């Protein structure tokens, strides 16, 4: 995770703003006030000393619009009470190189880890420019000046605001090697500061994708082929005659109905009989076929992902052998905000207002659908009402662009919940077969794993996304192999918070538990014995054991289960305390989490990410399942794709282990371990091993 932001890029992209900008506009009606972005790039300082820091990452709840400004503000010696932010697409001046920056995507839990050093440098450079400007104005030595709280003070106690100096500072060259603070002097980084976006969220003022308003805007509802891969057949635009719709147009795999109101558009769309041409093999596809195919795929060799030692020989001579098959279904993202995008296409230009995790992708598809040059395309990111990987895709952007182009007016596309549920890019269904050999008091001597499922990186090359968490193992095992078989069912699949780890950690951590059981050992001790060469992982495991008082559940009759996950350089261990009552009802009481994610910018946001990820992962573990029948998704809304509510939400307790290492990601790591932590606890409580998800498929009585 090396930072690739070169000095040159940094020089080009760091500028201080001109003075006199009104900063309130960054949050309110911002999408329509463009003067702002024309004059400044990464930060602006107004005459009244407010600092606005641009955030070129998608704010989807994970807190980048607070945490990234905190990094800049720290080095800038800004007055945090007068700092605000503005969302920008990761494009042009806001392009970030390195890691996910290459694609311009907000994902992979990389925003902080890729931007930590560049943003520190930017803040430090800006501070140095302000100090230099002050020194020049007052004709004093820069060393006699102190910058703090957005003021510069001379040794004589004379002082001036940053805002009063911004214009002069802006004319100075950007320093080559700005002096960074010693982390021991941090006063903003490391603090659990309030989020900058909350005040607008709680008043209903934040602009999400669904809330964008553009003069003369029309609305579109879409109807996409109910069967994957279907195309519109015999399209007759006159079918909207006699309705309130203003236009209907064909979009890839469906139609868009345009009206003066979304509700009208949706009503008409629902009433239309649209004739789809459906591929036969898809019409026949069901979850049962998919399951059979996965089983068959598992019997093929697949491609080798890893080989250590000689697992086959070691398995043959192992005194205890264990085998298990695990199965997970397709899952939907189900963000509370459905897919939505607003586009305004004219012959010369296109503007797109969109909740996206990839502004660069938005730009590319807009270009492809309009033929316009990128210099004529503006992408305005809005707040995302949840992303979880779904809003990396651009299907909904294409629809808005095509609709606006067709009607010559701005159009906002909104998907109904049913469209959202049935036209997702799903977390792929997978099966995995694991074999393990245990020696006499030597622990795991052989591990042989094979998984089968659709590939997120189809095309034959090494799919590190689909195999993340399956290999390498977090544990020391002398002989191991992992194979992956690529399956394909024509069901669209995509990035779902924690990607491959979302299923693979369930496979691996369930199987480690099974091996511990076969060895007659305590699951936590057994894991620790295979972590002797990894202090950080061991420390996390020991900490979580302490937090949960391992072996002594608080709730009478409850049982505990443990699981470990890695993501980038981050390590997380969870212990779930679970009861299964006589009627088979499962209750997850408390989830303890010990996390080592390197240095932390905002510990409260980190904890919130872990809490949210546990709920996200637990929803999937308990009830998440998208099933296919006749090539169609059966589920359509929250009644048949339920989410956890308050009554079933466990208490999540998180401890962040202190670390001097650089920050690593936290947005996803909380998801993968919760399913195995809970199923391992269910095993401890009932003796039933859950090998298929969701848990609701089982009856425990």
């Amino acid at each position: 995770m090396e930072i690739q932001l070169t000095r040159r890029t940094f020089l080009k992209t760091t500028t201080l703003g001109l003075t006199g900008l009104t900063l309130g506009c960054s949050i309110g009606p911002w999408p329509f006030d463009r003067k702002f972005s024309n004059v400044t790039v990464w930060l602006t300082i107004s005459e009244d000393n407010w600092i606005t820091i641009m955030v070129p990452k998608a704010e989807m709840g994970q807190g980048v619009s607070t945490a990234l400004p905190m990094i800049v503000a720290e080095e800038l010696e800004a007055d945090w009470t007068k700092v605000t932010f503005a969302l920008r697409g990761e494009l042009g001046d806001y392009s970030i190189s390195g890691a996910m920056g290459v694609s311009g995507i907000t994902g992979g839990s990389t925003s902080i880890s890729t931007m930590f050093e560049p943003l520190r440098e930017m803040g430090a450079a800006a501070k140095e420019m302000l100090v230099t400007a002050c020194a020049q104005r007052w004709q004093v030595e820069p060393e006699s000046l102190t910058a703090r709280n957005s003021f510069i003070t001379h040794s004589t106690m004379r002082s001036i605001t940053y805002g009063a100096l911004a214009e002069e500072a802006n004319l100075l060259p950007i320093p080559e090697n700005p002096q960074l603070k010693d982390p021991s002097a941090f006063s903003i980084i490391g603090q659990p500061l309030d989020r900058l976006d909350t005040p607008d969220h709680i008043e209903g003022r934040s602009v999400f994708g669904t809330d964008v308003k553009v003069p003369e805007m029309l609305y579109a509802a879409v109807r996409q082929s109910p069967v994957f891969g279907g195309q519109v057949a015999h399209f007759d635009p006159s079918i909207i005659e006699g309705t309130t719709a203003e236009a209907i147009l064909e979009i890839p795999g469906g139609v868009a109905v345009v009206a003066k109101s979304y509700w009208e558009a949706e009503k008409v769309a629902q009433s239309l009989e649209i004739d789809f041409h459906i591929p036969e093999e898809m019409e026949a596809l069901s979850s049962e076929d998919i399951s059979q195919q996965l089983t068959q795929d598992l019997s093929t060799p697949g491609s080798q992902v890893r080989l250590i030692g000689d697992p086959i020989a070691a398995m043959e001579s192992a005194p205890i052998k264990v085998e298990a098959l695990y199965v997970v279904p397709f899952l939907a993202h189900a963000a509370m905000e459905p897919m939505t995008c607003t586009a305004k296409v004219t012959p010369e230009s296109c503007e797109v207002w969109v909740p996206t995790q990839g502004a660069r992708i938005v730009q590319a598809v807009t270009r492809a659908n309009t033929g316009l040059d990128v210099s004529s395309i503006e992408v305005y990111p809005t707040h995302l009402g949840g992303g979880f990987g779904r809003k990396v895709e651009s299907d909904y952007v294409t629809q808005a662009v095509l609709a606006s182009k067709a009607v010559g007016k701005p159009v906002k596309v909104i998907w109904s919940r049913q469209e959202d549920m049935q036209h997702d890019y799903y977390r792929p269904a997978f099966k995995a077969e694991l074999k393990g050999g245990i020696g006499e008091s030597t622990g795991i001597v052989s591990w042989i794993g094979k998984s089968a499922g659709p590939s997120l990186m189809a095309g034959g090359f090494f799919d590190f996304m689909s195999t993340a968490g399956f290999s390498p193992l977090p544990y020391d095992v002398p002989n191991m192999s992992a194979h992956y078989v690529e399956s394909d069912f024509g069901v669209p699949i995509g990035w779902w918070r924690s990607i491959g780890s979302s299923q693979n950690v369930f496979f691996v951590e369930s199987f480690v538990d099974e091996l511990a059981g076969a060895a007659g050992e305590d699951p936590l001790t057994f894991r620790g014995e295979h972590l002797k060469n990894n202090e950080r992982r061991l420390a996390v495991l020991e900490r979580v054991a302490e937090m949960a008082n391992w072996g002594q559940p608080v709730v009478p009759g409850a049982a505990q289960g443990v699981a470990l996950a890695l993501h980038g350089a981050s390590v997380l261990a969870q212990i779930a305390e679970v009861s299964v009552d006589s009627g088979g009802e499962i209750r997850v009481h408390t989830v303890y989490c010990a996390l080592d994610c390197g240095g932390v910018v905002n510990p409260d946001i980190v904890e919130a990410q872990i809490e949210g990820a546990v709920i996200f992962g637990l929803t999937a573990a308990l009830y998440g399942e998208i099933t296919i029948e006749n090539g169609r998704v059966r589920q359509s809304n929250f009644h048949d794709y339920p989410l956890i509510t308050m009554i079933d939400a466990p208490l999540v307790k998180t401890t962040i282990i202190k670390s001097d290492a650089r920050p690593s990601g936290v947005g996803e790591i909380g998801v993968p371990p919760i399913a195995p932590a809970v199923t391992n606890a269910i095993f401890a409580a009932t003796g039933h091993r859950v090998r298929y998800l969701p848990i609701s498929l089982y009856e425990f009585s």
Partner: protein
Amino acid sequence: MKFSINVNRKFYTVDVDPQKPLLWVLREDIGMCGTKYSCGIGICGSCTVFLDGIASPSCTLKVESVGRMKVTTIEGLNSKIGRSVKEAWIEEKVSQCGYCQPGQIMKATYLLSNNSDPSDEDIDETMTNLCRCGTYQRIRSAIKKVATNINL
């Protein structure tokens, strides 16, 4: 058809299909976008408003049925309890993406207006709104914080 509806203590006249749900009238015809759409079938609570003080989904209520009921939305939620709830939301750092939060705040204000000291069971029973970001435990602590303040 024309309807005159009372939203946040002000009358608005809208000319719409009588079947149009209040949610979309608020968002499209009155221009208040704080009330959110998510499921459209009365499950998720993102679209929660008060109708004569009672928390209700606005996605399933036809505008013709609003009649003389007083509608309160997140934008107009300024009652003493409403303000305390909003403050507690900041103090307990509840919000993540924020999309469900207007609905959650309406629901929590309704709960606390009728029960100044809700038990965990009361909270479970009333707070059925969905939050995909998983902010439930902080919602619970924010509600308890307001209750403590009310009862001081």
